[in-house]
């Protein structure tokens, strides 16, 4: 029986990808006041950002309850006896804890492992895809875990922000606190470090940001997979996919959107780029 792969909606795996690769995506929740939506299920990314830009209240987000993971596990347990869950950094969300609690609820009906990816978005979404592909080829749970653990340090995520307003409001600045309060308008790049948001560098304009992304990607001699995501600026993402084509073939570049739950912090105009470096 093949290993089943479970992830959460902040992996930015689209429903097409999930269906194709047999991945179960557990949604987080995003709320505007009392209006709550399951991430990517009850609210599309487009609808979300439209609302984000016109609402005066800032959205809040919640992890999936352990019971939701438990339901998923029970259902999958009918088809398999090995489940691997890969989730958003435990320092940014309680999703990891929910998945762990659900695992405890299952007792020993099925072997379940949960990996704290220490990342967000395609920063771990690419790992989920790789895991699903390996599982489909018949790799065992240990083999898949091994493969994911090897790749985790090779996944490099950088995020371009038009504004840090949403991240600061949401209290997720992490080590990037020092970037607030700049007296010039700057567009920051953030990255993930030890499971937390950390500063990378700053540029003055979007054009300079796109240049930076290109030079960042060009710094990797061998690339296994690449992911380009946007919150509201599809044209910028298209431009990037074109220019990044020189560093990786088109079929190795995944495109997605920054999910509403992440968008509540990234805000409009954000771009997320993940380089999954090939083994040396």
């Amino acid at each position, binding site marked *: 029986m093949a290993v089943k792969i479970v992830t959460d909606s902040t992996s930015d795996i689209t429903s097409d990808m999930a269906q194709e690769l047999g991945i179960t995506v557990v949604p987080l929740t995003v709320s505007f006041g009392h209006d709550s939506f399951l991430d990517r299920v009850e609210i599309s990314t487009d609808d979300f950002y439209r609302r984000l830009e016109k609402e005066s209240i800032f959205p809040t987000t919640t992890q999936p309850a352990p019971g939701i993971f438990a339901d998923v596990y029970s259902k999958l347990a009918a088809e398999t006896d090995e489940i691997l869950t890969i989730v958003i950094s435990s320092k940014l969300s309680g999703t990891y804890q929910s998945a762990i609690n659900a695992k405890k609820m299952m007792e020993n009906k099925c072997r379940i492992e949960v990996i704290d990816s220490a990342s967000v978005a395609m920063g771990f979404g690419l790992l989920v895809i790789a895991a699903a592909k390996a599982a489909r080829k018949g790799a065992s749970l240990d083999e898949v875990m091994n493969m994911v653990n090897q790749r985790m340090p090779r996944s490099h995520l950088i995020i371009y922000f038009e504004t840090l307003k949403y991240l600061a409001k949401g209290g997720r600045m992490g080590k990037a606190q*020092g970037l607030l*309060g700049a*007296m*010039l308008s*700057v567009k920051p790049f953030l990255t993930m470090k030890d499971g937390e948001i950390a500063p*990378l*560098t700053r540029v*003055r304009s979007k054009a*300079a940001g796109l240049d930076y992304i290109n030079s960042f990607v060009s710094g990797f001699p061998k690339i296994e997979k690449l992911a380009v995501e946007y919150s509201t600026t599809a044209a910028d993402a298209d431009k990037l996919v074109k220019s990044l084509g020189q560093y990786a073939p088109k079929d190795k570049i995944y495109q997605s959107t920054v999910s509403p739950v992440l968008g509540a912090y990234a805000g409009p105009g954000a771009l997320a780029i993940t380089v999954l470096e090939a083994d040396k």
Partner: protein
Amino acid sequence: MKQCSSINGRDFKEMFTAATNWLEKSVSEIDALNVFPVPDGDTGTNMLLTMHSTIEEAEKANNSNVSDICQAMSRGALVGARGNSGVILSQIWCGLAAGLAGKETFNGSDLANALSQATTMAYKGLSNPVEGTILTVVKDAAAAAQAQAANDNDSVISVLEAAVNAASESVANTPRLLPVLKEAGVVDAGGQGLYTLLDGALRYLNGEVELMQFRKPQMIASSIPLTPLVVTAPERVAVDEVPFGYCTEMMLKGQGLEPDKLRKKLKNKGESLIVVGDDTTVRVHIHTLDPGNIMHYLTSMGTIHSVSVRNMDEQHQDFLEMQKQRAPATGIAIVAVIPGDRLSDVFSSLGVTAIVPGGQTMNPSTKELLQATEQATSDKVIILPNNKNIILTAKQVQSLTNKSIRVVPSRTIPQGVAALLAFDYEADFETNATIMTQALSSVKSIEVTRAVRSTKLNGFAIKKKQAIGFIDGTLVAAGNKTSEIVNDTLAKAGLDEAEVVTIYYGADASEAEARAINDSIQTDYPDLQVEIVEGGQPHYEYIISIE
């Protein structure tokens, strides 16, 4: 209102309403001045909230004589006092009220007397007054007011002006009196708050109400020349054995309360003790390891209200964390040479560790640069000279220190900003020096200044005091009208490829003129992102970066 020799209660209230709005504009800057363990993480906010309560009470006063209004304000301050600085501020109000008691209106000497009483009250409220704080500032302001009142010209405006000027100097001097301020390179927050209030009141009297809507209060810079703006001390992070305990605040209401006795009783129960008030209402502020004990004691005297207990060890941890995060990256310090406070603010907001004041015609010495690098807590220091005449001086520093120094040879302010922004938080020291140096060429620098003498240069016959424009140090335009020279120089620099233009207008230029330049750029290049920043730099009316 320029000529007024005496002022009634209603004007007094209006004057401090304007002052409170003035204070509100720099609350976040004042909050940012806080240095632990000088108590309270939010001096600006606390003073503002105290003032809000003060003004609210003034609104309720029935009479328009200054005595009654000031009494009401004093009551409002006491009831609404927040934090250490707020409580001291409430004492200042209490003193002012005592000084103006029984008066229908007041004149300059009345004000001077009231300020003196305010000083006495402020000192009295504390069991252990510390100099280099709001206390020193009110004392110096009062002394200057007295001196002015003794002169022939004792109009309220001239007395208040003397007080404001003295307060400003006193604030700048606070780091000399209080080592913890010097170490952090900031002035006392409470002192800055008081200065801002007095300044706001003076501006109101001078009829600047409208102007105040568009301006911000001045943040006083330390008078100690070397101002490390962000000092992260790893060694200080380690020292944290002494617990800070709980910042405990409450109001005690009852009959026949005796603040002096209370103060004596509480003296040994903690630090930073403040007990102020009268026989029916007393405000208590103390840092104690056992807040329960304090509350227990006070409830035996009367009823307690507005109780606040905050864990200061937690605050301290947060503070250390914030300090760490404000540094550009662990292990690398950046020292920059900057002309003027406004530009210093820009650089420090972008993460510079230490600022050495200097620039054109005021080149810092090697020693000053050395001091700044020695003070930086990192062993790896990058220096941004931001002027071609300072690069060599900066390069001397390496031979005088055991620290590793890299000079990123920025020749202009725009180059300095470009280098600073290119800083890569994930890269090591060497790589950053390289990246930052490469970034210098990503920006074109325009500088517009005035010729100091008549000369011929680059085919231009320049007359003394004419405006002259440079692109990356090369003279390209000269003429009588600054704005024309700016536009001329911009045209020669070429904006077709540009994405961002930043205009830093200097001390001798006006924001209005900068806006006009902005408008003319926007007309020709509507897609260009143009930003106007008050640089306040001397000599150069305009410094413009083109990226």
